[in-house]
Every structure is written in C-alpha cells, then in structure tokens.
C-alpha cells in the first residue's frame, strides 16, 4: 500500500503556512526600511492590486471562465461604500465588508445568468456589466457624481503608515484565504472545471454551483478591495468601474501566472512598481511598460512564477 501521508498530511500544510508566514513578516517589517510616505503609498497600491489580481485569479485562473469585468465589482463596491459613508456616516469597518457583500450578491446575480455561458460569451457579458455600471455612474450624476465621482469619504487611516498596515493585513488575509482555498478540495474541483468541465460533470460535480461560489468569493474580495481604495483615496470616481482597470488586473494575473494565486502577487507587485519606476522616461513610459508586458506574455505564457519555479528546480536539482 502506497503511503501518501507526505502528500496530504499536516506536514504539507505547515510547509505552506511557513512560506506564507515568512512573506507576512516581510510585509510587516517593510516600513522599517521604506518609511517614506511615497514608498508607503506605492506599497499600498501594490497591496490593492494584489487583492484584485488574486481575487480575479480564483475564478478565471482556476475555472477558465475569463472575467473581463472585474471593475464591475471593484467600482460597484467602491461606490456602495462611499454612498453608505456619505449618507449614513458608516465608517470603513462597516463599509468594507458591506461593499464586499454587495459585490458578492452582484456576483451571485451575474454568475447565475452568465456562468452557464462558455468561452467568449461569458467574457463578453462580464465586460458589458462593467460598461453598464460605468455608464450608469456617468448618467446618474446626482447619485454617483458623474465624471467627478464622490469625494469627502472618511479616511481609511489618518496616517500613511496606518493605510499601509490596514491594506497589508487585508492583502495577507486575501492571500492566506485564497491560497489555502486553492489547495483544498474546492480548489481542486475548480481546477478540474478549468481543465475539462464535461469530465468534471461526469464525475458527479455540480460545476455551475462551484463556479457561482467562486465568482461570489472573487467578487467579495474585489469589493472589499474597491471599498478600501475608495476610503484610502477619500474619493471614488468612474475610473474604478472602467474597463482599463479590469484589463490591468487581468494583465497582472497573466504576467505573474494564472491559476496559482502566488503568480498574481508577483504580477501585481512587478507591474505596479514598474509603472511608477518608469515615470522618469516621460512619454516613453507606456511604450516600454506595454512592450515589457507583451514580451513576458510571449516568452513566458505561463507567467513569471513558472519561470522562477523552473529556475529554482534546476538550481535545487544541480545542488542535489
């Protein structure tokens, strides 16, 4: 009898926990080295994009259902949080989870109608939902503020350092949750759907149910991220529901490596920092940034994480 305790026993869990814990300690210690408000703001942005890219990865990276409208949930929750704060005075500790719940409910509704669609049809419908929200924001100026958006929302934190830690903790919670979820039976089932939905159904799996739940979780986390960003900026504008944000989140996950949760972390950090670092290049910045993204997708279609892992295995293999 083959013994598989090494593959499924508690040792594997602790090994994974150890890896994520080291990353968490690094996140907590970073302000000791980078204490400049500009650096902390930049790292806040990294946290924000990690939350968005990882949440996008759960549905699309695992089940293969390409969501082209993640901004629908990000912007929707951002505006929901902002409106609740402005009209009822609810603080971030209430509006963040409520924003997430609003997004999850939207995920349930959108998912129930669209997740039976395959391939480009699902992608097109999600894209349309985000566009609808964007247009609604522009049309309903008295509610959403139109192009100007809504300002005067409560702080996420009065200090930049506080914002860094709040976003950092939310990012770590997202990573821990999604990473362990992806390694659970739930994650395995999502992967099976992504690989072969017919065989998955033929194995007794209610694929529609799992896709809807994944969509709701993905939307909830994106919603919390959106509400967090709105409070951090004390402003929410239509750009939070714009398709360029959906595209950026998608690119971050693809560059890092879809279907891994860890890959989108790499993609989000790299592209956020690269975008800022290249500012000195002026008008050439976008050209170089876009060119680099295209090159990575062409030469590393499975993402940077795949390259890192291959190099690591080769180095470890040679050392042995």
């Amino acid at each position, binding site marked *: *009898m*083959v013994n*598989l305790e090494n593959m*499924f026993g508690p040792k594997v869990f602790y090994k994974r926990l150890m890896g994520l814990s080291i990353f968490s300690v690094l996140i907590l210690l970073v302000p000791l080295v980078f204490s400049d408000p500009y650096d902390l703001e930049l790292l806040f942005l990294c946290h924000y994009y990690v939350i968005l890219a990882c949440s996008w990865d759960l549905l699309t990276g695992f089940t293969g259902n390409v969501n082209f409208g993640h901004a629908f949930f990000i912007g929707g929750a951002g505006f929901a949080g902002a409106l609740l704060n402005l009209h009822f005075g609810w603080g971030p500790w209430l509006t963040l989870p409520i924003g997430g719940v609003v997004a999850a409910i939207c995920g349930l509704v959108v998912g129930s109608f669209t997740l039976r669609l395959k391939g480009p049809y699902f992608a097109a419908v999600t894209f349309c939902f985000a566009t609808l929200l964007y247009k609604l924001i522009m049309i309903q100026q008295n509610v959403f503020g139109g192009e100007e958006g809504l300002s005067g929302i409560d702080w996420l934190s009065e200090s930049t350092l506080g914002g860094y830690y709040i976003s950092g903790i939310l990012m770590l919670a997202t990573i821990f949750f999604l990473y362990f979820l992806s390694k659970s039976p739930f994650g395995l089932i999502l992967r099976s759907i992504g*690989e072969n939905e*017919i*065989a998955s159904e033929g*194995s*007794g799996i209610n*694929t529609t149910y799992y896709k809807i739940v994944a969509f709701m979780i993905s939307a909830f986390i994106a919603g919390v991220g959106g509400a967090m960003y709105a409070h951090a900026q004390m402003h929410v504008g239509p750009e939070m529901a714009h398709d360029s944000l959906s595209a950026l989140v998608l690119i971050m996950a693809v560059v890092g490596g879809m279907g891994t949760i860890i890959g989108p972390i790499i993609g989000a950090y790299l592209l956020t920092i690269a975008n800022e670092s290249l500012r000195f290049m002026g008008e050439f910045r976008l050209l170089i940034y876009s060119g680099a993204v295209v090159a990575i997708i062409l030469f590393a279609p499975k993402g940077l994480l795949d390259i890192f892992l291959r190099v690591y295995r080769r180095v470890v293999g040679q050392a042995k």
Partner: protein
Amino acid sequence: MEGSVSMEAILEINELSKAFGGLQAVLNFDLKVHRGEILGLIGPNGAGKTTIFNLITGFIQADSGETLLMGKNITLLKPFQIVNMGMARTFQLVDLFKEMTVLENVMIPCFSHRSKSRRQSGEKPWKVALHFLEEMGLEERLNEQAKNLAFGELRLLDIARAMATAPDVLLLDEPFSGLDVEDAEVLTKAIQRMHKMGQTMIIIEHRLRDLLRLVERVVAIVFGQKIAEAPPEEIINDEKVIRAYLGERRS
C-alpha cells in the same frame, strides 16, 4: 459471469429516440438491465451505441422516451445529477484532467455528493482514489501528470475515475480500445472483480473476443435500432448480427 444477477431491473430504457437533423441516431430503443449483470452493447461504427450512452447519462437530451434508474425517471436530469443517482460512465475519446496528476484525476469524483455520502466517516478521499488506482494497476503512476500517460493507461484511469463515483451502474465505452495485451488483462480481471462484487455494467466494445468472455447478454444495434438480444454464444451466430457486421452476400 461469476456474480449473481437478480431479476430486478436496475436500469430501464423505454422507447428512446434521438435525431440529429435528418439523421435518426436512435429510434425507439428499449432495454432492461438487471442488477449485477454485465451487458454488452455492440454494433458497427455509427450504429448509435455512444449516442445511447450520451442520452441516458444526460449529456444529450432525448427527443422522446424515458430512462429509469432504480425506478426513478432520470431522463431530464443533468449529467452530474445522474452520476449522483448512481450511474457513471467512461468516455470513448478519453479526455481527462490532463494537467492534473493521476491521483488527482481519481480524487475529483471522491468529492461528488454520492461518493462523499458513501465514504466512511474519517476516510480520506485520497485513500479511496488510491484504492481504485490499485484496482487498475496505476498506483505506481499516481504522481504522474495524466498527459504523460500512454493511451491504454488513460483508459484505465478513466475507469478508475468512474468507479470512484461509487456507481450502481457503470457504463464503459470501448474500454479495451487501444489497450495492449497486458493492460487488457488488467482490465478484464478488474471487471471480473467488480462483477463478483455485484457491479452492474454495460460495455460498448468492438473487440468482441474481449467482450464476449465477460458479458452475460449482448444487445446488437444498427442505425439506432435493436436488431438482436441474446447470450454471447447465440449472438455471434445470429444472422442479422453477421449481416450488420459483414454485409449482405452478393448472390
């Protein structure tokens, strides 16, 4: 032919019909399968054998007719619901979870509602999956990605996957196709073991020599219609079956 067959019809197909445009793939097909029985389904290429499997497992909707599994009408159910009711199948063109390991492939059905409810409390899904891999002689390959398996091994893996759903009725679509002598022997023994334990099976197969030594009854179809139903020793001498396979004599 060692297992005991009861007279209780575990699966009943009544007047099942399906047309694809102008092509009548299955017409008024009737069948009763008894609990514990192994039934062979034969016919030339394009006879409608796989279409019948697709119809009764919910992958294609029938135009008319009904399928009863243990007396319950499953005609309009979805494939996953039918699996959870107790009927699983393998696929003629094996296309599993290629990027996943062999073990993971068989673990997926262990998370189905039926498999979960039948597992003893505390029994790990991977242990159940491993049991079925051992049945098919694939335990040495459990960490291999499915895409690296030979075609014959993929067939055995597909059967292990279907078995892991704990089916009452197992449908095998050309399980011997592409198997070498060694793998065919592994499969034959596995089918005989399952039969001994009372597993009901319907097997579609072109390799009649392998099929006929396993089954108790054979149904032959041509153009979606049943032309003969008899024990194996009779079916090979049936005029209509011989004509369907070999064609009419010219003079």
